[in-house]
């Protein structure tokens, strides 16, 4: 499956991936409205760690055998057999944060429910599309990141 890979040598700490992730997961899909008008405020599913010297964007790895799916007590976290995407069914999620605790990457966030990367449902993810320096790439697994 195609996943998002980060290349830290090109990450420039602009954090636009966060901005565009948040926007793409907003109701309006408009940057200004997503930030200023919408309530609850949409949550970015990708986070850049580091500073100007070294930084990298982190999001869900969509593991082959996801700990979060195993740990979910509500059956809200599932891995789609066809696409491989791990996603949360927000109507089932009870906000217990178990997934957050077991995720080895630390990429699950909590709003009212668990929130995580859904790979923009299979289209080129917004974070990749809008990365100004190709620090994020969308590649087939096994292709590896350069």
């Amino acid at each position, binding site marked *: 499956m195609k996943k998002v890979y980060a290349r830290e040598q090109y990450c420039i700490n*602009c*954090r*636009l991936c966060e901005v565009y992730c948040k926007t793409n997961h907003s109701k309006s899909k408009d940057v200004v409205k997503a930030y200023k008008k919408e309530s609850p405020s949409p949550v970015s599913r990708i986070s850049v760690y580091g500073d100007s010297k070294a930084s990298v964007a982190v999001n869900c790895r969509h593991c082959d055998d996801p700990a979060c799916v195993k740990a979910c007590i509500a059956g809200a976290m599932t891995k789609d057999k066809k696409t491989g995407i791990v996603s949360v069914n927000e109507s089932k999620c009870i906000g217990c944060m178990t997934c957050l605790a077991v995720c080895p990457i630390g990429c699950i966030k909590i709003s009212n429910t668990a929130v995580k990367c859904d790979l923009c449902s299979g289209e080129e993810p917004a974070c990749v599309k809008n990365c*100004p320096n190709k620090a994020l790439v969308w590649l087939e697994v096994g292709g590896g990141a350069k």
Partner: protein
Amino acid sequence: MINYIPREFDIVRDRERCIDCGCCVRQCGFDCHYFDDDGKTVVADSTRCVACHRCVDLCPTGALSIRKHVCDYKDNANWTPRIQQEICRQAATGGVLLSAMGNPREYPIYWDKILLNASQVTNPSIDPLREPMEIRTILGRKPEKLTAVKKGKSQTEMPPQVMLETPIMFSAMSFGSISLNAQKTLAIAAKNLGTLFNTGEGGLHPELSDWSDYAVVQVASGRFGVHKEYLNNSKFIEIKIGQGAKPGIGGHLPGEKVTVEVSNARMIPEGSDAISPAPHHDIYSIEDLRQLIWSLKQATNNEKPISVKIAAVHNIAAIASGVARAGADIVVIDGYRGGTGAAPTRIRDNVGIPIELALAAADQRLRDESIRSRVSLVAAGSFRCSSDIVKAIALGADACYVASAPLIAMGCHMCQKCNTGICNWGIATQRPELTRRLNPEIAHERVENLINAWNHEIKEIMGGMGINSVDSLRGNRLMLRGIGLSDKELEILGIKHAGE
């Protein structure tokens, strides 16, 4: 202390659109943008803004714009605000004014006063989409004549030749003055375009050895990074005598830019200023140049053409002829608008002559001496678009060197702060957090797109003239007409006035 100089720009933030994401804060290498005391609201200090537009171009909501800061002085056509500000800067520092990029002053740009021809009726124009349109260019010394006793077999002993698939090359920019990523970008683009990049006086970084077939390696007065392997890892060798942006003076790479990598490539201690002397201390005359040319040929087993780059100065035609006669295979003339990473402002703005006049004079002089067809003539010093290139070739150039244009393609906004070592676009800097911003994967495509676009335009213009090979454009001054030029200017350019 009072700064006697008003700021240059105002950073204008549309609060309606700003989402306080902080992208501008993290991108400005001059620290103009910052989070206010609340840690959330982004504000800006315009005094340090250089109008590089990094924040404007990356702002996800388009909330930023840069305006010229208006602060009028009392009218004075002589003591202009610029002159007054320069005096204040010198009063504060006691130093020589430094600038970067090419001469920005209002001197005539002759390219804009030359018009091109097109075919009508008596001679058909050629459609470049239907017919082959050749821009392949061959540089290097040519024998006097072909030796062939019969058709189809050449018995000519050819000196080394350089075949380019476009008459456009990338001019010298050293690793040190620009980042490795910027140089790598040019190297990749040169390979894919079938042309050459130029190492400048900075040595060849080991990471670029894969592209040595597309490299012109420079030997300048500091001899930085010059060794046998360096000379042999090249397509041709260029002796830099002068540079259009600063004729008559050497170079100065401040110690802050001399990182470990730069120091290795240049073979100088880390952190030391890299100072190229004004003259080559083994060239005090034309016969010394001849010796250096022959030494370099010996060091490379006569396999590399040697070019000599000179700045366009008053007596350029005679100097070019002397250089050709001293054994240079390629003569490069760099006009006064040529760029630089750092030059004293007074020199940049007042020394040298326009490339258009220098090129025309040198080409004619070489013809008057019957040696034009033996050597290659390359023009440098600010080619802004394809029509500038076409005009230069018609005046007599074999090929043109471009540098500023590809830098702009990479992101340069001509803020002219290369000499500070801070470049928000990752080009003219060695700071890793900034150089990282220039991803060669993206940049080489942009540079290639630019040159390919120019190639298309050159072909289109040639087709309109009824010419299908750049060979027939070279020196074809009948394809040019001056507009609004004096008789003397027309005479030097060797062209007629429009309407004649």
